């Protein structure tokens, strides 16, 4: 059976779950600060890539 995904986009945190066969699968939480960290970690690579292009 296919999965229905629910995404709760909150002020500070976004939560993602799947529902399959009447059961919760793969709950995941992402904080706004995680995205900022991800951006910070990768921004150097992004800049480098942009420059090399």
């Amino acid at each position, binding site marked *: 059976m*296919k*999965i*229905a*995904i*629910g*995404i*709760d*986009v*909150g*002020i*500070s*945190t*976004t*939560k*993602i*779950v*799947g*529902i399959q066969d009447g059961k*919760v*699968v*793969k*709950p*995941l*939480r992402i904080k706004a600060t995680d995205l900022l960290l991800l951006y910070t970690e990768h921004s150097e690579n992004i800049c480098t890539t942009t420059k090399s292009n």
Partner: protein
Amino acid sequence: MYDNKIELTDIDKVMLTGVGSAYIDKPVYGLPTEKAEEFLADGLGARFESKLQQMIVVSMGTGTSLVQCKGDDIRHIGGIGVGGGTLNGLSRLLLNTDDIKQISSLATQGDISHINLLIGDISARPLPGLPMNATASLFANAQGNASREDIALGLICLVLQSIGSATILSALNTDIKDFVLIGNLTLLPQCEYLFPMMEKLYDVRFIIPKYSEFCTAIGAALQGIDHPKGK
């Protein structure tokens, strides 16, 4: 999806809810994407996780909203502007941090009698329905030199007790005795003893289901599967 080995073709539908969903107006990864009504999602998710048919759902996020469920009759009945945002803001002012892990850790070393005025402080014997350790006034006992640990516990009690009291009052003149707590604040370890104290005092039940913080997302996904009518 990559980490969880889920293929795009495994997904039937994506349901979006929450205040931030208003900014998303394109299909996610090209998949069928719809908006889910948030308060209905709160009710459906809490019902799914608690297996209860009649309850008030207490969604403790940045603020707090209350959703009454009686079978398929799911309706938003109000809320209070006290929640995780209040805890963050007051902690920034009084503790110079809004790191919730640090605040809850500090609070484990706090003594609430140094912050709150208890019935035992103002009465020589218990009042009808109010034991000596019941709160008479939040923060009324706080002194200028209160420790960070005591302040942290006081702030958490302020937020959770205010929510608990508002919740119980919201069920007056109904036969509802079950309150299902969902949202980020349910992860505070102090919930484990503060809500049971209120249960004993007011003869109600507070339930924190397994996936309490994910209930709104669960309810959104459920709206993609079936569509009970909310009001």
